[in-house]
Each structure stands twice: as C-alpha cells, then as structure tokens.
C-alpha cells in the first residue's frame, strides 16, 4: 500500500561520513550490522504511539544524515526498554545506538530544557530526584525512618565529588543554562 501523499526523495547532498564512526565510538559499535528487518520498530512500545522509528533512525544514520537524526524530537521518545535489543537478529543493540546518537545530539547542543534541569539537579544535590522539601523528610519520619537518608542528602562532600567529576568531563558546561534560555 502506498501513501496518497507525495513523498519527496531523501536528499543526500551532504552525507556526513564521520557520523557512523562517531556512533560506533560513542557506544553503538554494532550499528553497521543492521540489515533493516524492522524487528526493532515492530517491538517498540514508543513506536506504537509516536513517530519514533528505530529502524528509520538507524537507516538515516547509516546514510550519514546526521542533522536529521540528532535534531529529531522523537529521538527522545525511546524509554530504553531494550526490547528491540533483546530481539534484534543482528545484535545491533539498537537501544545503545539510540543512546549514542543522543550523546552526539547533546554534544551538538540538542538538549531539552527539562533534561538540562534534571542534570543540574544532580550537580546541585547529588540526586536527580532530591529530598528538596521538608514534606519529603516528614514522609520519611511518618514511615519510621530518619528524616535524612545516608546518601548525598546527608553528606555534602558527595555533591562536591560529583561537581569535580562533571568539571573533569566538561559535563557542567554541557548542561549549564545557555543565555537564550534565561529569558
């Protein structure tokens, strides 16, 4: 069956030959084993309700269509459930490929503001979901626990460690507020 809508041909004027190598280095070493069977997309609960198409992203990546891959909002609809990884007959590990493409997207400035905020929370508190209200401490007391658990919420030196690590990997710069976000 064909779509009634006319589809323009894929433009391959400037394929980025480096993109596949970048993905392989960044955590998706098996991407070139893909033979486009579509088991990944057929197994994908995100693909069942959104336009996220694992097979399509992998195909685009193999064609060197870097910009299309890293700028696609649906790149962030994968819940990393690994069902595709468990079913892929070619051991492409599609989940790891998606995560690698996300790493490259973030490097190139494609990061949602909400994601940036979660990352900043870890640098500020040591936790993505912090003990940031007194009511959370009260909830702990209500169940018979000490108000502050023995994690980074109690030990500020742990937060300092995380900040040092982030400085070393330049993660702090990667997730800091950019000027245009501060309006």
């Amino acid at each position, binding site marked *: 069956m064909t779509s009634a809508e006319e589809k323009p041909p894929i433009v391959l004027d400037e394929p980025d030959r480096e993109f596949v190598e970048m993905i392989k280095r960044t955590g998706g070493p098996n991407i070139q084993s893909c033979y486009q069977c579509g088991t990944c997309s057929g197994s994908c*609960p995100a693909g069942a309700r959104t336009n996220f198409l694992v097979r399509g992203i992998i195909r685009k990546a193999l064609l060197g269509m870097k910009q299309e891959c890293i700028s696609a909002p649906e790149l*962030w609809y994968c*819940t990393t459930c690994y069902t595709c990884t468990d079913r892929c007959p070619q051991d492409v590990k599609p989940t790891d490929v998606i995560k690698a493409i996300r790493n490259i997207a973030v490097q190139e400035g494609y990061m949602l503001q909400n994601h940036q905020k979660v990352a900043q929370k870890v640098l500020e508190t040591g*936790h993505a979901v912090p003990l940031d209200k007194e009511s959370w401490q009260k*909830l702990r007391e209500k169940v018979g626990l000490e108000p502050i658990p023995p994690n980074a919420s109690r030990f500020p030196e*742990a937060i300092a460690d995380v900040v*040092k690590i982030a400085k*070393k990997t330049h993660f702090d710069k*990667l997730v800091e507020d950019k000027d245009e976000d501060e309006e």
Partner: protein
Amino acid sequence: MPKRPAFYHFLGCIIPHRYPSIEKATRLVFEDLDMDLLDMEGATCCPAPGVFGSFERITWATIAARNLTIAEETGHPITTGCNGCFASLWDANYELKHDEDLREAVNAGLKEIDREFKGTIEVTHYVDALYNTAGLEKMRKRVVRPMKGVRMALHPGCHFMRPKLLKKKEDSERPHILKDISLTTGGEYVPYKDELMCCGAGGAVRTADIKIALDFTKQKFESIQAAGGADMIVTPCPFCELQLDLGQVEIEKHFGVKFEFDVLHISELLALAFGHDPDEFGLDTHLQYMQRKTEPHWEQLGIKR
C-alpha cells in the same frame, strides 16, 4: 551460627526521597530473612541510566563508578531495589570490567576525587538477594499472612532482565523470578497481555513528554482490566511504582480516565505477607493516596483494619 549475608544498600533517589515505605519495608523483610543491609554513606544518584547515559556516557559511568568504589572499600556486594539504579551500577560495573578505554577515562575522572575503580565487587538487585541468597523456601516459611485470593498483576519492568544476553538473569520473553517470589505469598497470579511492556517512564521520556509516558502506563492498566482486573500490581522498581501509582493521578488529569489500582513494591508485598502491619512501613504514604486523600483498598489486599 553461620555468618549472615551482608549487602551494601544502595538507596538511589526515588526510594528514600519519594517512596520511603519501600525503604522501610525492605529493612523489615531483609531482617526477617536474616540478611544485613549496610549503609552506603555518601552514595549519590546512580545516575539514571537512560537519562545520564543518554546525555554523556563518560560522565554517567564515572558517577556510577564513584558509587561502586564506596562498596569496593570493604568488598560487600551492593543490593538495590530499583531497576534503574541496578541498570546503572550493574552496567557500569560490567562495562568498566570489559572496556579498557572506558575504564581509563573513568579512572582519570575518579582521580580528581582520589578514588579508583578496581572492579572487585558485584551488583545485585533486591530480587537477586531474595531469590538467590534467601531463597523461595525461606520466604515461604516466613509467610504468616497468606495473600489468599489476592489477584496479583505483575510489572517486572525492563532493566533487571534486559539486555538478556548481557545480564543473563532470565529469559526476558518469559521471566519467572518476580512471579516465583510473589507466589510465595500465596496470592494468585493474573496474566495480562502487556505484562512485559515498559511502564513508560524510562529513558528520560517522563521528563521529555509526560503524556507520552502516561500513554504507555494507561495501556498497561487497560490490559490488566481486559484480563479481568487485579487486586494489586506488584513491581520490583520504585520508578515503575511511581509511574504506575502517581501516574494514575496524572492519567486522570491528562486523559480524564480514572484508575484505582494499589501498586506495591515486591518488598512491600513481602512485608505484608510476613505479617507486618501496613502502618509499620507506611503503605498508605504512596503518592497516589497522599494526593487523592484516599487509602489502599485494604480488604482487596487481604488486610483487616
């Protein structure tokens, strides 16, 4: 007397900060099963595998490795009750043992804080400690409040068993470990079509677009209803628990559909079956009940109040 097994207890974020009833129930259950939990002082976020792993792999692995080195100091294995924390710590531990380039990059980061990843410990999930260390027989013997007639729908979640070739826990198309543990309580297993589907929260999707995440969750609830319903949903993960529990309040808001499932972590189910009063660990503090100002369906859960 034989030495009691001891685990470093990795709390993570959601259990201690949002669902402390799971932390308390776990302490009760491990004590009942003669297993020790040791505090991991200064542990941070694991950090979330689908989130930080998606942002920057080296930073993810280095923060995870810092957590691992806390346990390496004395050599006890880690145990955690969160599929996400388990994935981060287990994966980082595995990858650092097998990928020299990554290990070099990570140890360069850890050097800044005078630590080094050595690769000397193992990472387990509560489910491993329950199933392998305590064992089903020991759990069965501890049950003093059999969950007779209680229909349990299970949500195993993703990151304990997948990727199956790497984790080698069980067949992710036919998992049995959570089911075996749950059945020791005497409850009844309710199969449903979407049991093995993701809750929708992972991979930074809950943060990116909550409505898409909730659409997964809603499908799971509808699938349980199509199977004839259940008296409780049991999961081994607090992030799944948050998505399934608080998610019901959010689904009502976003989709106008009301579900009223009681969602229990496997530790909470066992605490009940082992005879603990629900107030002993605060089952009614789940965020669904706090926000809706409701209570668990005690009778359905087999609890006399």
